[in-house]
């Protein structure tokens, strides 16, 4: 019985961790679908969200106002990012673009480092209460919030894409830009919106995970790697895949750390990634695609 409770405990924290990966992975997938390019600064969106909170609260802004403030900052940053990092290279192949996003990632991390210093910053939790215990499993409120917000974000995204005109336009843009342009969809604006949306998603993930991981310069990179692994495991460019992949990765990591080794915690995710690439490179939900001649 005791061990069951422990396992459930590990499962719970794995799912919470996994939702963070899933949130960032969602941002990844959106940009992949809109531009066919992986944004290597996606994790740094989360980092920036965390630091925006630190900045606002440092300036005396109350927590509940700092959150919308930070998200507005993220939205604006998404616009700037699109304009500065993606837009000038939009007609080139994917390699210059991903290298450019890598450059952006280094730039963001070191600019933040310059202003905030290398010391990780603590961040308050959304609710002050520690948590609740059900059947021997202690549920941290922050983890519950993470799970809840992720669920809401996923539901919102589903609604947006499947049931609104904006969502249809976004889908059309991601599937065939030339055709979308011909039927009058403002493709550039749709892509800009995608970057804004992804930046905000990243910001939310950063704000949520800050109390658990602390706000640090490097927090984004490691989250991004896991999130990308999640998209590959789930199926490249697949929304459901990103969520399932993220959760799976969080759980594997959590159990791996508990039963095998804590220092190598990060290696389990990559190991899972390698296994998938070898045995099922198209991921759980992905279809085998071949290039059209």
């Amino acid at each position, binding site marked *: 019985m005791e061990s069951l409770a422990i396992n459930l405990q590990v499962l719970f924290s794995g799912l919470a961790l996994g939702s963070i990966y899933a949130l960032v992975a969602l941002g990844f997938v959106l940009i992949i679908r809109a531009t066919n390019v992986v944004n290597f600064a996606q994790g740094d969106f989360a980092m920036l969200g965390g630091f925006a909170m630190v900045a606002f609260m440092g300036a005396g802004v109350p927590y509940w106002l700092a959150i919308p403030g930070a998200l507005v900052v993220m939205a604006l940053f998404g616009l700037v990012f699109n304009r500065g990092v993606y837009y000038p290279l939009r007609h080139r192949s994917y390699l210059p673009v991903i290298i450019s996003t*890598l450059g952006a990632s280094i730039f963001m991390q070191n600019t933040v*480092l310059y202003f905030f210093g290398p010391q990780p910053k603590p961040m308050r939790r959304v609710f002050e209460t520690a948590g609740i215990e059900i059947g021997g499993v202690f549920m941290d409120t922050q983890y519950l919030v993470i799970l809840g917000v992720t669920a809401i974000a996923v539901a919102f995204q589903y609604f947006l894409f499947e049931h609104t005109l904006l969502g249809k336009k976004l889908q059309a843009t991601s599937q065939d830009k030339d055709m979308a342009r011909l039927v009058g969809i403002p493709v550039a604006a749709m892509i800009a919106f995608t970057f804004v949306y992804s930046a905000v998603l990243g910001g939310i993930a950063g704000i949520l995970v800050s109390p658990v991981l602390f706000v640090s310069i490097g927090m984004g990179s490691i989250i991004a790697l896991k999130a990308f692994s999640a998209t590959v495991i789930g199926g490249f460019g697949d929304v459901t895949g990103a969520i399932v992949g993220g959760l799976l990765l969080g759980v594997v990591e959590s159990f791996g750390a508990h039963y095998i080794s804590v220092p190598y915690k*990060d290696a389990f995710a990559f190991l899972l990634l390698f296994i998938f690439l070898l045995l099922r490179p198209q991921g759980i939900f992905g279809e085998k695609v071949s290039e059209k001649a």
Partner: protein
Amino acid sequence: MNKTYAVDAAPLNGQAAPHAARRRPVLRVAFFVALGLLVAVLPLVLPLSSYVLNILMQAATYAVAVLGMTVVLGYAGQINLAQATFFGLGAYAVGLGTVVAGMNFWLALAVGIGLAAAAGCVLGMTTLRLGGHYLAMITISFQQIFDLVMVNWAEVTQGPDGVAGIERPSLFGWQLTDDRAYLLMCLAVLYAGIFFVWWLPQTRTGRAMRAVRENELAASVTGVNTLRTKVIAFTLSSALAGLGGALYAAGFAYISPDNFNFARSIEFLTMTLLGGSQSAFGGVLGTGLLILLPEWLRFLKDIYLAVYGLAVILIMVFMPAGIWGLLRAPFERRRKPAPVDLDAIAPLDFGVRAANPEPILRLEAVQKHFGGVKAVDGISLEVARGTVHALIGPNGSGKTTTLNVLSGIYRATGGRVLFNGNDITQHAPHERAGMGIGRTFQNIRLFPAMSVLENVMVGAQRPNNPISGHREALRERALSALKFVGMADRAEFLVKNLPYGHQRLVEIARALAGHPEFLLLDEPAAGLNQTEKKELGELLKRLRGHGLTIFLIEHDIALIEQVSDRITVLNFGKKIAEGAPAEALRHPDVIAAYLGEPAHGAA
């Protein structure tokens, strides 16, 4: 999704001009030997402080790793974000090998190169199949795992403290402990590396790498084993990194995991891009600049790395060919393509086999389904040797899909494809090209940043092509093919500078250079004007006159009636008619498929 060439090639890039190397070989080699001697001797005669010598040593060892990046990123167009890991494998092999295991330096160096190459090869074989973004992320993950292991597996790697007291070797009785002597040795190695990387693009493998970078799909149907080519590039790149790392370890006597982290990989990447990823000299130039830059940019202090990140974006946007590309551009613009002596080119030999009643190609109930869509739904047909066989049908009838199943780009969902009686249903595109199946594409797929001649040489170097694999033989074969289509006078032009109609002809020449037994043409007349169409018709007739078997898709019915012996008509993935042109085109089902059903008797 149109996959175009990777890191955009420089306009009129140096690598795309093989003749430059041929024209003044003595002069060039002499120049580089002189330059190399000068660079090598300078540190010996100039009174340099040991600080400066250290910086030079760092630059020389890094540059060897960057040369690897030139091969994998610049030539083969594959991203590698773990170069510091391969560099670190070489360094740790020397560090742990000499200090802990008491190995001889040179043996440890060989082990280091071997380890790095093996790691690169294994990583490449598992992930290069996927390419692109996967490769970027996998290499980052590999880099992270390496970091974790180096820091945490302290019993073996000595953990974060690193390895100290690495000694410099002796060579033929000469002690290389002195900074100058050791630097000289590093420079000699670097110089050999530069020469190798400079020479590589003109070899078969180098050409194959660039073809893969420019258009992977076209490379594969032209006979390039794309996976093997990419793995070779990756392995070479990691071996060079291992070599650089091994030299670095003994040069600086101390190594720790910090020297080989992700930031260092990004540094190698930036050096490559800054200097110009497609040239060995560019890579070395970029390395020198980025190592000296911190010295010059001290005033930037804390924001140095931020500026660095910004520089990466700016290079990608404004300097896709790097500094070397910028330096070369004015010379390239002035350079006139060498004139080609058209009369000296031998006529194209087709080497068509003696008449054989056996059909050259047989499709047996071939199917290709995409999810629920039955694009090709049980097509059977035979193509007789030495004939022109046309495949027609309305848009969406499955013509191009059939062609893709034939050339191996798609694997058939069901049925069999027999070529010369051999079942090739499961063969990869390059294997089929190696058996003598050539093809062109509806939306032309050439290697844009390579010269016309090089494009066709890639076709000539297909496996089993019955000519010598020697460079001169390939060149002659390519020129003959170009002469046949009337493009020999354009041999030295870059393909991307040719007009559309000429690009079509070059694509046909590329296929012809490989002695195809069976030529697949996907809408060769698409986008051509009336004159060009007429010329194409003449070309096809000449090809038929040489006994070549041609299987073509075309919408231009007049052209088809002129050139084809037999027509197969498809609709909705099924064969609806077949026969001689007059017969097939007048078949009521064919008329209905093209023009719709007549409305209730009123025709």
